[in-house]
């Protein structure tokens, strides 16, 4: 490992998965009542749905996000660990 993690990178240099996590936090998808559909997340983040689904699947596996089905649509929001991971950037 080099020194690449020694400095906080700019948003457009962050891995897309972390960038997505940060964006979900900042747009307010932090609990089930504020969860968003793939389409809504895509509109905010300008990321395409297939890429979003890949990242969201990984974030859910890692315990940083969770999804549930509402009105036959999957909706997503961060978990408490996901929120803490984002806030660690700025504290």
């Amino acid at each position, binding site marked *: 490992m080099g020194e690449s993690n020694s400095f*906080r990178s700019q*948003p457009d240099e962050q891995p897309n998965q972390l960038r997505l996590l940060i964006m979900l936090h*900042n*747009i307010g998808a932090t609990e089930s009542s504020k969860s968003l559909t793939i389409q809504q997340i895509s509109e905010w983040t300008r990321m395409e749905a297939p890429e979003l689904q890949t990242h969201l699947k990984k974030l859910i596996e890692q315990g940083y996000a969770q999804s549930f089905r509402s009105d036959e649509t999957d909706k997503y929001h961060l978990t408490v660990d996901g929120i*803490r991971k984002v806030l660690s950037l700025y*504290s």
Partner: protein
Amino acid sequence: MKVGTLTWEFPPRVVGGIARHCEGLAKALVQQNHEVHLFTLDFPGSPNYEEMDGVKVYRASTELGHPNFLTWVLMFNHFLTKRMADVVHSVDFDVMHVHDWLAAFSGISFKHYLKKPMVLTVHSTEVGRAQGLHSPDSFSINGIEWWAMYEADRVIVCSQSMKNEICDHFNLPWEKVDVIPNAIDAAKYQTSVDRGAVRQRYGVGWGEKLILCVGRLVPQKGIEYFIRAIPSIAKRYPEAKFVIVGEGWSRDILEAEARASGQNRKIQFTGFASDQEVINLMSSADVLVVPSVYEPFGIVALEGMATGVPVVASKVGGLSEVIEHDRTGFFVFPKNPESIAWGVDRVLSDPDHAKWLTENAKDKLHKAYSWEAVAMKTVEVYRKVVG
């Protein structure tokens, strides 16, 4: 005295040390018969108002968002301001106390609106956290920090090294800054812990060593250097197990570092742990390593001292004021895996000396770091600005 406190972190919204600091200080102020109204952000599962040991806690819900972090900060400050506006009509505050730049916009607004003095506690700086100013956001945060210190009537920091840092970096007048160290509630750490059960839970068997590292998984905590020290430690102590407690944005990078170390099966990342679980682990560990590269204070070292685990820490920032080398712990060089391995070896190779260190550490802790003392010193600062 009636104190209005603003902070973006307050339990259960615990990210770093700010939440614990605000909780300890607020409760101690209430115990000394001051009135504390604390304004903070919401967190899943928390009420928008509650009283915690007499501290009136108001949580603001951020109803609007934006992908950009700084824009989001401005937005939550608006909602924090709105939450506070509900209260200021019925409470005549003597002083506003703002913690870090994140709540500064709201605090500065109320300072001018209410014509009340503002005290700012600087817990860390952007230039320190990011080890430089490498992005437009960092430059902007650095500017907000300067602005908040300029607007504040007095500035509080938790260590002499932080005072040196902010006076140097922001050209702040030396006489405007007060140093008040952090503290912990030592009684909380004096609980009976079943060490065997805790160690077993983390896969540490009888006769094996438990080497612990607790901190947010971010570069400033230097955990990468601890991981790089593990092969050397494992060579000398093949029975050692390594537990890394905390969550943070660089977790993926650190886990990759652990895989590359060749010792991955001995390394465990626990993620975020509750206060009680941290106490359990510290009480059960053989060594606590604090490998920070930037540390305004280093409250984790105090927590370790309170539980009686020998502490091996980088000689940086506030840590260099908390620990006395070879008397209450061991210092190692920052960013230096060989030095960390040396420190761990000093503890593990001489258990009697390690025990002596922990007894000295506990003694120092009780004398120097209590919330009662922190609250009294903070009130002295309030009195300077209230007049």
